């Protein structure tokens, strides 16, 4: 089975069919492009929403904000009030009070 085409530049019923077909293809292409762009945008917006809605599942470094680009850490935290990487040791250890020096201590740790 074969089809016959009208010569280029010639007007007639086939020419109008081709123009309508080309126009329809163009519209389809445009709609497809729009759908593709909208889909990508929607996925991006959804991803941002999910990442913020479930922040606790984005574990990062511990005890420091290092590695965090925006200052947000899950379970990390700032260094407020102390070194983020270690517990502070005392400048000197406690000193035992000798028996002859003992008098009633004004304060007791562990009694309440």
């Amino acid at each position: 089975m074969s089809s016959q085409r009208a010569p280029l530049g010639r007007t007639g019923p086939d020419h109008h069919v081709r123009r309508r077909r080309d126009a329809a293809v163009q519209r389809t292409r445009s709609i497809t492009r729009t759908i593709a762009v909208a889909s990508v945008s929607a996925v991006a917006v959804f991803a941002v929403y999910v990442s913020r809605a479930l922040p606790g599942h984005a574990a990062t470094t511990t005890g420091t904000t290092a590695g965090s680009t925006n200052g947000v850490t899950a379970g990390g935290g700032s260094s407020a009030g102390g070194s983020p990487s270690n517990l502070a040791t005392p400048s000197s250890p406690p000193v035992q009070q000798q028996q002859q020096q003992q008098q009633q201590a004004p304060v007791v740790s562990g009694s309440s």
Partner: protein
Amino acid sequence: MGTAVARGPGTLAVYRTTRWSTTVELVVTDPRAVAAATGILNRQLDRVDQVASRFRPDSEINTLHSAAAHPSGWAHPVSDDLFEAVSLAVRAAALSDGAVDPTVGSALCALGYDRDFSALAGGVPGRLPAPRPVPGWQTVVVDSERRAIGVLPGTVLDLGATAKAWAADRASAAIADQLGCGTLVSLGGDIAVRNAPDGGFTIGIADVCGDRTTTVQVSIEAGGLATSGIGRRHWLLGGHPVHHLVDPDTGLPVDPYWRTVSVAAGSCVDANTASTAAMVKGVGAVTWLEQVGLPARLVRTDGLTVTAAGWPSDHGGGPGPDPARR
């Protein structure tokens, strides 16, 4: 209601009161500074209570809990004080390998500790819940740029292991800075020291076993000292004895290996972090304390006393025996 006891010119002045169901003690080296120091102390305690109390419906931390009920789980901007309090709690968790976890609040509520401790004296109805891990400190979002905190819906933060010690650090620093005197603040035995006199402040270290309390005395010149134990904060849940030190892995009270652990550190927060962590870590605590270099005195449930990382033995000699080697 407090009392002020001045021990004469040139000696220590002591102020005592009760707060948060525990004893608050303030010692200053200048008796003339007692009134002003007391005012500073009470303002600091008021602020910490307003920010971090689980038992006040209007506290900022409870507002944060309510906000977290929204399923979006967004981090919410908070005051600088709450941000610091939660940051310190998360830091304590990280530095204790998760032994001191601020997300134990729901577990404590399930054990009946959902009210001021004084209200637990007669016991509470209920039954011991099934073992279940707490949400975990890693789920707490700390946004340092927005000064915002986020927790998952249903998470209740309990800052008990750090907030009281933080209050002691804040109060002692404020008093020493503003009044220039030597200062010791003790909140239920969580002790912070600034500008100590020569020889340091003398502190009794109590070991509570039933109705019997034994005490040894040490002195410290700076930083903090804290004692954790099961001797005081315990109650009955449906007739079953429970206490406030929760194992994050089970959400249940720690099966105690130690009766009492006292730790000295550069701050009261760090001392209390370490003493609480040691209670949770159990037999591994001595090795861990040696690794982090914090002097400690540990009393096992059978009464054996062990010292670590430079804490003097009770008899003035070197460190005591390591139970892991016995």
